[in-house]
């Protein structure tokens, strides 16, 4: 496979002036929302989805991808300077990053985080370029039973990796699947669970669900917990690490990159675990573990590399199998469908300029983030001082405009309010909404393939066991569930989420 030739072609696409501009916009918006706590990439991408109508598919995805990995960069800035994770993926960075900032080494922490992220992002992008074509060729041999089994693995992994009770996560997955059945039946056109509302004939709007569950619920929650933002007031100087720092950081960055790349590919949002895993590994390997939590530079370098690598490689299942591994990727499916592209292994052969253009744009975007962001840190800090009472009406207004303009349908906006209520209730009752969203996206795909599989086998469920690939995948899914029941694993899992 001629990866180099394809990459050159991809750069041809990614470096067109329009796409460079879109990549820059995406990266900047991503950093902005990454810096601001209380608004995550899910809500932002859902909000901006309607704006991509006027773009072509490649441009739209380049921009949305930029938002996602830009948010990983931005999240660490807030974590280091304010001791508050801008994104969930930067929770770990607060531990040592903020300590470094208190010791007057904020610049160094920010620099190491950015450079580590840059390195990890580039490596992980190359992983996509190498693994992508191979996986998509494997996936072309997949029939309906294999796809079903694969989605079962994805859904099980999503429940296992969700924080909180596993049983509740399973319940959320089932509810998501149920919500996914609303709308016209694919085969017969029968109206299912539409409550005789004509606007529901096409199903529940994905943007409404995502914005309601994540964006609106988050706003209500932020309003009830008054915030305290203590930005470190010192001047930020000395962003570039010196030779001794680099020597200290090289190994953690490499290990973080490997860990993040592997965990990112896993279905069910493995990327979220990557920084935790990296931090644990670094602490175990360190000569003096007591330095951790008191401003150890490795504790910033490793997890920051890991979260960026994971963010990058989580594109692999989406681009090669057409199966989103997490909620953000589920939104990418939405963006692709709006553009008339059906995600799956055929994307690489039918739209090579889309795949390779996106891969090349990730390299471009990561480079831009380092070059642009380090000088802009001062500006981001000033933005952090914008109080939430001014921020959230703006978020609300943009969400409403965004959702309304998808179909010019007021019902879609009402659904945002409904799912905002649902999302808030889920938080209050300690249910994790992420598996619900993923199951909602996978549901219709799953049902379609399940029905086809049963049609092929004439109603015989043995078809899932007789095919080797589908059997293997189902065994993996069952194994994951069983492992979760082991007390020791359960304990570590709880530690990972609360450590």
């Amino acid at each position: 496979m001629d990866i180099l030739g394809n990459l050159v072609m991809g750069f041809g696409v990614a470096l067109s002036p329009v796409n460079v501009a879109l990549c820059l916009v995406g990266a900047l918006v991503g950093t902005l929302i990454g810096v601001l706590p209380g608004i995550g990439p899910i809500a932002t991408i859902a909000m901006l989805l309607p704006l991509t109508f006027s773009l072509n598919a490649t441009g739209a995805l380049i921009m949305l991808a930029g938002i996602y990995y830009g948010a990983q960069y931005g999240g660490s800035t807030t974590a280091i300077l304010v001791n508050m994770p801008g994104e969930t993926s930067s929770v770990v960075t607060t531990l040592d990053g903020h300590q470094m900032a208190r010791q007057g080494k904020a610049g160094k922490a920010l620099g190491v985080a950015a450079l580590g992220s840059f390195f990890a992002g580039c490596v992980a992008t190359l992983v996509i370029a190498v693994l992508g074509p191979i996986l998509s060729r494997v996936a072309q041999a997949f029939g309906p039973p294999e796809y079903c089994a694969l989605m079962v693995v994805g859904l099980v992994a999503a429940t296992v990796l969700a924080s909180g009770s596993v049983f509740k996560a399973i319940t959320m997955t089932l509810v998501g699947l149920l919500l996914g059945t609303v709308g016209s039946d694919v085969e017969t056109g029968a109206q299912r669970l539409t409550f005789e509302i004509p606007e529901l004939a096409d199903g529940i709007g994905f943007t409404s669900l995502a914005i309601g569950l994540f964006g609106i619920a988050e706003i209500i929650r932020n309003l009830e917990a008054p915030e305290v933002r203590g930005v470190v007031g010192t001047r930020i100087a000395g962003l570039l690490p010196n030779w001794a720092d680099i020597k200290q950081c090289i190994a953690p960055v490499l290990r973080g990159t490997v860990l993040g790349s592997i965990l990112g590919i896993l279905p069910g949002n493995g990327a979220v675990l990557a920084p935790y895993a990296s931090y644990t590994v670094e602490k175990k390997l360190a000569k003096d573990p007591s330095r951790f939590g008191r401003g150890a530079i490795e504790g910033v370098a490793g997890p920051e590399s890991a979260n960026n690598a994971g963010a990058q490689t989580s594109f692999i299942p989406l681009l090669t199998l057409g199966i989103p591994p997490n909620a953000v990727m589920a939104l990418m499916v939405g963006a692709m469908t709006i553009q008339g592209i059906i995600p799956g292994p055929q994307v690489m052969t039918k739209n090579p300029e889309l795949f390779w253009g996106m891969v090349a744009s990730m390299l471009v975007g990561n480079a831009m983030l380092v070059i642009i962001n380090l000088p802009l840190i001062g500006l981001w800090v000033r933005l952090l001082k914008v109080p939430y009472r001014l921020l959230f009406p703006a978020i609300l207004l943009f969400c409403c405009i965004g959702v309304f303009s998808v179909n010019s349908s007021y019902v879609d906006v009402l659904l945002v309010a409904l799912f905002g209520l649902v999302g808030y209730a889920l938080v209050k009752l300690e249910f994790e909404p992420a598996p619900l969203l993923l199951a909602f996206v996978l549901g219709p795909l799953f049902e379609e393939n399940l029905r086809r599989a049963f049609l092929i086998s004439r109603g015989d469920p043995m078809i899932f066991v007789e095919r080797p690939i589908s059997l293997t995948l189902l065994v993996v899914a069952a194994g994951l569930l069983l492992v979760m029941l082991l007390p020791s694993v359960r304990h570590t899992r709880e530690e990972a989420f609360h450590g």
Partner: protein
Amino acid sequence: MPEIRSPKNLLGGVLLIALAALALWFAQDLPMGRAMRMGPGYFPRVLACMVGICGIVLVAISLVADGAKLDRWSWARMGLVLASIVFFAFAIRALGLVVTGVGLVAIATVAAPDWRWREATIFGVALVAFAAVLFPKGLGLPLQLWPWP
């Protein structure tokens, strides 16, 4: 009467059962089909049953295992935020973006514990002006600006 040991799980379970019942009620006319050729009702009904079973299990758990008490809900803040969205939904077609936007910001702002008159007014006007320029003009979204066409 058994003792309720985890109110959070009890409420969660009851809501799940209600959701399952609602789905089953509305799916009752959809043909089931057989496993070989599933009808449109097969998948929703199987799922609704599973959700219902999960709800029952959760209710059972709430009676045997100790768990968290219910959190305090910020009804007023939640109501205001949701009301601002509902207002937008019903007003946008008739009143246009400018009036609707001002209304949404006005309703939502009050939900903040520390809002101030002057600041909110200045910021709200600037925000709506920005949105009115950005969305219909800059990005070409089909949005009406004023109550009159």
